[in-house]
């Protein structure tokens, strides 16, 4: 067929000089620049666009824009394939590849159409009633079949190659919709100096002005549109966002929108997610036409009347040369007249309402178009497409009319979704036979058709007045403009009709989910009286079009079946997004390596060069081990531990939380934060500290360094650094604001290296200018501010490894140089850079608790640190520490564990039960928290919590890991495996 078989020779806003080639289901077609995929295919005479979801019925185009329920296609192929795209919203481009969905093997020969034969059994809620017996068939057979048949398009399952972007935007007035009402609002607000953002989902502004032949201010509406657009574009305080859908209205003036961007420029992303904060918003989103439920109303060739106008004026495309118009309202007449004027032979206008004399009716009559009142279309007839209608008059007489297209106008529904997103419920209007937005809340004003005011002059007036109102409220002087005049038009009138009785064949309500009028009546009969229940039972409005053309019709049918007024049945809740939003747009930058920020220590680059292997812990990248050629983690960390215990090693401890404090009440503040005493902590000394939560559980552990009488630095665990800081800030600001204490995080300022081992002092002294590090000057737990290479540093003699050790903090920028110096200075002592794996092994050997033991469920007593708690002083956690549950002797206590069979491996998280006992609650004795292979002892070791643990030394229990069906018998030991007297530490 010719590419222009259904294109008028003149008119339209396409570029007739620019031909674009594209394919649909592998067949080549040609369209024009300015076409959508839908208009181009219609121009080529294509009638069949898809197969319906359940029954696989042949479907054509119903609508013009986002409301389209049928023509869902997949655009592109491979990784970039995008399924479930409405052909009406795809701008035609050269080389576009589109394929239809939900059919096999082809669109015209779809074997799954056999479902249609089973139609009787596929009524509302059929999946709740079927596929139940036999139960065994579910996973083997039913699930497979259903999975294959379910869904519309198919996702590519490959990584999305497109880029997405996000930006915030701020404005005084957000105008949603660029039709006449929105344009007036933007103009008035823009002229008043307010910051205006206008967003419209289409590529061009104008809304329905583009789909009708109207005159504004004595000239064509498109000329008026052009002028307004130019003025708006010239205003610096106005931002125009085309191809941008505002998909959600959120709290406090926040709106979500998605903009489609041109794909030519490689620098631009495909879509941009806008998070807009608006002082106020104008909802100028117009209205969407609805259909009527009658037999055969889903045949290809049945289209919304307003859509035909759109294709006519925008694309010069007619979907049929001999249409019949079936309408309940005045707008159907306008459609018919527009078609007649374009030379289309309208076969008849069928109106279920009474005779009303109007200029349009008279013009149609003069053009020879038969007008039938008090009549309905009982059914549409045709096999592959509509070929005629059966009309029924009020007396029941039937007459068949031939046609090649049936245009239906059941009425108009204001597009009120955004107004209802924050929970307000729409109100039924009997006069307009539709729902109107909930009462305006001051932040979002519906205007024009979105508020149920369909006349063009009302749209213009509403937009302008809303802008004046909002501007005044926001403090901008807005002048009420002289409103442009419009040509005469019939006032809107409607005789409500939602469904036509009888005729036997299916009358569809929700075309995308194949929900019929009979399904809704069946739901009512089965007792689903609430619209929320009926929606989910029938799946009305649950497809990707969210029932834009179906919901109102559906609930009116339900209301009638329940014999209740529509106003009482009401609508279901409205939730964002208004149209589907790609997850990529919401994720934008945050995918792959950028899913979350990554934190690197000041020694990251240096350790990379030295061959360290990193792992993620929280947001941090930490060096886990530093292998020599041929070593795996086990071998490397084993070597590292031995090197430290025999000589000297150095490890990056930079991510530790560090908080600096001062003030006359600094010490008192610390006394309240830690459960152990701080009163006797002198300048030049550090102390281990245990911080509790108010409920008595351990929050964190760390060290407190005292530099001067009121000057301290505390360290925290890496994982809890942020939590401890917030904890301190809360208590100081809210609970004890009278305390004279000042503090701030210095975690990032200081890089940290722990130098550990019997040779640590000798090596470090070669590098440190001051202080002197001999035993007399710098005993165990001493701290000092010193100098290394003239750079200020902080040094403490603290050990995590159990060896003599020093923690050296230098300003982060000097960390790399310090590491170099240490490696050089310690070369003769075999200094070894080690990682977290070795560090963990050593602290487990020493029974030092860390994150796995401080999981928020353990008290100082559980950890064997009860004696640290000072009873006399008030501190956080003191009040609730003596509750029976926390002092129960059967409570699991920290112990060491060793597998009886040294070759067996333990797992962290294993449960402890009596030897040989069943793994049930009653036998729960505790758990394994940390595991390691001890180079010093030559076998696996673990830490854990065991009921009556300290009384059971030498006894055996089982460590079980049911997930892997493992059971290992272990012997209970002291938690400190190596050098329990701590001689290596303090020497």
């Amino acid at each position: 067929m010719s590419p222009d078989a259904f294109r008028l020779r003149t008119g339209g806003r396409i570029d007739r000089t620019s031909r674009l080639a594209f394919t649909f289901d592998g067949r080549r077609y040609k369209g024009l620049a300015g076409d959508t995929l839908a208009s181009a295919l219609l121009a080529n005479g294509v009638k069949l666009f898809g197969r319906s979801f359940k029954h696989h019925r042949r479907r054509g185009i119903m609508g013009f824009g986002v409301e389209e329920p049928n023509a869902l296609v997949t655009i592109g192929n491979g990784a970039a394939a995008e399924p479930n795209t409405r052909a009406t919203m795809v701008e035609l481009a050269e080389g576009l590849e589109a394929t239809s969905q939900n059919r096999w093997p082809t669109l015209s020969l779809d074997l799954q159409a056999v479902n249609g034969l089973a139609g009787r059994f596929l009524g509302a809620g059929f999946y709740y009633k079927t596929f139940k017996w036999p139960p065994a068939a579910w996973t083997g057979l039913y699930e497979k079949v259903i999975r294959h048949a379910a869904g519309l398009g198919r996702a590519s399952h490959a990584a999305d190659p497109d880029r997405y972007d996000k930006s915030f935007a701020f404005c005084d007035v957000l105008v949603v919709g660029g039709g006449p009402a929105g344009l007036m609002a933007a103009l008035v607000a823009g002229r008043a100096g307010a910051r205006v953002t206008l967003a419209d989902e289409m590529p061009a502004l104008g809304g329905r002005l583009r789909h009708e032949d109207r005159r504004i201010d004595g000239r064509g509406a498109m000329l008026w549109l052009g002028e307004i657009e130019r003025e708006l574009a010239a205003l610096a305080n106005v931002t125009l966002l085309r191809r941008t859908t505002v998909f959600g209205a959120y709290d406090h003036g926040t709106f979500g929108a998605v903009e489609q961007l041109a794909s030519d420029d490689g620098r631009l992303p495909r879509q941009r997610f806008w998070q807009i904060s608006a002082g106020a918003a104008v909802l100028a989103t117009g209205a969407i036409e609805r259909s009527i439920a009658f037999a055969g109303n889903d045949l290809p060739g049945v289209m919304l009347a307003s859509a035909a106008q759109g294709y006519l004026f925008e694309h010069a495309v007619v979907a049929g040369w001999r249409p019949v118009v079936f309408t309940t309202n005045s707008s159907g007449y306008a459609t018919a007249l527009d078609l007649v004027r374009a030379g289309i032979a309208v076969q008849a206008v069928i109106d279920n309402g009474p005779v009303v004399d109007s200029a349009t009716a008279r013009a149609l009559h003069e053009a020879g178009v038969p007008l039938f009142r008090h009549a309905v279309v009982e059914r549409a007839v045709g096999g592959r497409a509509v070929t005629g209608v059966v009309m029924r008059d009020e007396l029941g007489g039937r007459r068949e009319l031939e046609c090649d297209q049936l245009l239906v106008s059941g009425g108009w529904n204001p597009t009120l979704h955004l107004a209802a997103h924050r929970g307000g419920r729409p109100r039924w209007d009997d006069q307009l036979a539709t729902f109107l937005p909930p009462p305006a809340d001051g932040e979002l004003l519906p205007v024009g058709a979105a508020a149920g005011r369909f006349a063009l002059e009302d749209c213009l007036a509403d937009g302008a007045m809303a802008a004046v109102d909002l501007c005044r409220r926001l403090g901008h002087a807005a002048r009420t403009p002289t409103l442009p005049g419009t040509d005469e038009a019939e006032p809107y009138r409607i005789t409500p009709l939602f469904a036509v009785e009888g005729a036997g064949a299916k009358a569809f309500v929700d075309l995308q989910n194949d929900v019929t009028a009979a399904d809704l009546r069946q739901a009512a009969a089965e007792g689903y009286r609430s619209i929320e229940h009926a929606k989910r039972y029938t799946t009305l409005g649950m497809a990707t079009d969210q029932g834009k053309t179906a919901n109102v019709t559906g609930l009116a049918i339900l209301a009638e079946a329940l014999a209740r007024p529509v106003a009482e049945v009401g609508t279901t809740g409205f939730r964002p997004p208004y149209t589907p939003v790609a997850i990529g747009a919401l994720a934008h930058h945050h995918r792959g390596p950028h899913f979350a920020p990554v934190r690197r220590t000041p020694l990251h680059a240096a350790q990379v060069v030295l061959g360290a292997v990193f792992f993620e812990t929280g947001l941090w990248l930490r060096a886990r081990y530093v292998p020599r050629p041929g070593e795996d983690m086990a071998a490397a960390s084993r070597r590292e531990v031995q090197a430290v215990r025999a000589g000297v090693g150095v490890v990056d401890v930079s991510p530790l939380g560090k908080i600096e404090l001062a003030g006359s009440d600094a010490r008192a503040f610390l006394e309240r934060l830690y459960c152990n005493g701080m009163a006797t902590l002198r300048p030049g000394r550090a102390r281990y500290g245990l911080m509790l939560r108010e409920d008595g559980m351990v929050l964190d552990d760390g060290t407190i360094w005292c530099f001067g009488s009121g000057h301290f630095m505390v360290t925290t665990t890496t994982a809890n650094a942020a939590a401890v800081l917030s904890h301190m800030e809360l208590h100081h600001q809210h609970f004890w604001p009278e305390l004279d204490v000042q503090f701030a995080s210095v975690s990032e300022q200081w890089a940290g290296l722990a130098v550990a081992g019997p040779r640590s002092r000798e090596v470090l002294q070669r590098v440190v200018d001051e202080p002197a590090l001999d035993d007399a000057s710098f005993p165990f737990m001493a701290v000092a501010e010193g100098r290394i290479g003239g750079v200020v540093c902080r040094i403490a003699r603290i050990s995590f490894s159990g060896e003599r050790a020093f923690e050296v903090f230098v300003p982060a920028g000097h960390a790399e140089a310090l590491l170099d110096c240490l490696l050089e200075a310690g070369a003769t002592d075999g200094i070894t850079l080690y990682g977290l794996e070795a560090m963990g092994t050593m602290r487990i050997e020493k029974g030092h608790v860390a994150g796995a033991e401080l999981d928020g469920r353990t008290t100082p007593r559980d950890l064997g640190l009860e004696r640290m708690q000072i009873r006399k002083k008030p501190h956080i956690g003191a009040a609730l520490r003596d509750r029976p549950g926390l002092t129960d002797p059967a409570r699991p206590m920290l112990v060491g564990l060793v597998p009886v069979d040294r070759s067996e491996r333990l797992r962290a998280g294993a449960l402890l039960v009596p030897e040989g006992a069943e793994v049930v609650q009653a036998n729960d004795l505790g758990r394994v928290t940390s595991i390691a292979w001890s180079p010093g002892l030559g076998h696996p070791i673990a830490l854990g919590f065991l009921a009556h643990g300290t009384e059971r030394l030498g006894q055996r229990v089982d460590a079980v890991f049911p997930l892997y069906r493992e059971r290992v018998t272990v012997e209970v030991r002291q938690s400190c495996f190596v050098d329990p007297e701590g001689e290596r530490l303090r020497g």
Partner: protein
Amino acid sequence: MRITCPHCGSRGLTEFSQQGDASPLRPDDGAGEAAWVDFVHFRDNPRGEHRELWQHVLGCRTWLVVTRDTATHAILRVEPAADVRGRPRGRT
């Protein structure tokens, strides 16, 4: 959602972290177990006005008491937690 921090102005929700109900006052140290259990573990869950502790973690790090309607999300009042009593009057 947006919260107007008294120091920083109107900011988006992601800059804040919520702690919970600000109404319970931290008991005196010697107040007894019952008072402390109440403070630590028990909370009302009202529909309507709720006074809550929030911290402006990605901003000035000030702790705030925010009066928020739990049903409508309207923010009725924001004050620095330092200006709101956190414990009963009297000795520490």
